[in-house]
């Protein structure tokens, strides 16, 4: 049985909040939606994390960082990787979207708008620097597999767009 529901013990939230995505340091793994479960069972924290993308090299590091953060707070942890249900960009929290934007990455649009922007060339992705929608896609793949590369025609800055994954 798989579920979209997240199950995290209240007391662990402040600890896990400190762990960030190594590729996007401003973004907590909780706001990224990769922690699906963190509960204390017999004095051990059982943590389940799910990868954003299959090849995401950050997952090993995230697992180690979680173990270290929990150890620092006096908990022993067992981290395991789950694939199902598969991660979706809908799991990025509103705080996470804000953090992405502040970091210079345009957060994912809705699935329909994403398709129009990436395939139809419609100007729907706004520049995270100046807010202009006068942007164009340079490449469907950006600095990492989860991003596409865009350029703002207003301020001339290139930027990453976090692709929608649903």
């Amino acid at each position, binding site marked *: 049985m798989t579920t979209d529901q997240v199950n995290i013990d209240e007391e662990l939230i402040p600890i896990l909040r400190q762990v960030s995505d190594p590729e996007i340091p401003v973004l907590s793994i909780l706001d990224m939606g990769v922690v699906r479960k963190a509960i204390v069972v017999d004095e051990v924290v059982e943590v389940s994390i799910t990868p954003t993308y*299959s090849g995401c090299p950050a997952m090993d590091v995230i697992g180690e960082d979680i173990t270290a953060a929990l150890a620092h707070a006096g908990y022993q942890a067992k981290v395991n990787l789950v694939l199902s249900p598969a991660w979706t960009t809908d799991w990025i929290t509103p705080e996470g979207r804000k953090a992405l934007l502040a970091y210079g990455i345009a957060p994912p649009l809705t699935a329909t708008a994403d398709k129009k922007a990436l395939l139809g060339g419609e100007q729907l992705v706004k520049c995270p620097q100046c807010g202009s929608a006068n942007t164009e896609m340079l490449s*469907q793949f950006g600095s990492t597999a989860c991003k596409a590369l865009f350029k703002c025609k207003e301020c001339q800055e290139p930027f990453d767009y976090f692709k929608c994954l649903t």
Partner: protein
Amino acid sequence: MKDNLIQYILGIADNSLILGQRLGELTGHGPAPEIDIAITNISLDLFGQVRSYFQYAAQLSDKDITEDDIAFLRTEREYVNVLLVEQPNTDFGYVITRQFLFDQFHYLLLSALQQSTDATMAAIAKKSIKEVSYHKRFSADWMKRLGDGTKESNQRVQQAVNDLWGYTNELFMLTDADKQAIAEGIGVDVTLFKKEYYENVAAILEEATLEVPTQAFFQKGGKEGVHTEHMGYLLADMQYMQRTYPGMKW
């Protein structure tokens, strides 16, 4: 039954492993930075998927092995990828055509594999298909761009299509492991979407103003471990580190 499932997993995962290795060869050598990055990312996606499959296979195995053993320490005859994916990066036309012919298949395979009665296989398929839908867009877009581009690009990509066409039929041949996995409800009967595959491919080739080859002669062997002369070189490169420094870790 367990051994058969392992063999079935290899039949799927080896295609992604060998194609990922081929694409990885282009890292830093792509014709333009954007394409270089895209191809490297696709390679990374494929390796990520392979890791999920191989971790599962290692877990099923009675032997004390890891995903790395499966990836790096088999002999040539033990790899069961189709011949298509081991074909060399002759030029960008070949790289894109090989990708296109595989992505169209890969997508249909994963669509069906999501319904596997094996929960792990279904979960890997559900995860992977999201990534492969991006690969499929990328390669189809480039087929159109090259086919409907200049006279030179059209000729060269047509040449690649003609040369690689003979490797497509093997995608739809069933091995003994396939047949048993299908009977158990774990595996996908790829012959069921063969017609759809060729229709989809033809539609995109047509849009790309390319001709659909009509040749009737097809190559096969990879699924039985009998590879083309390119495979040895690829493996020598891929296995070098593990063979030279056994047990080496990052």
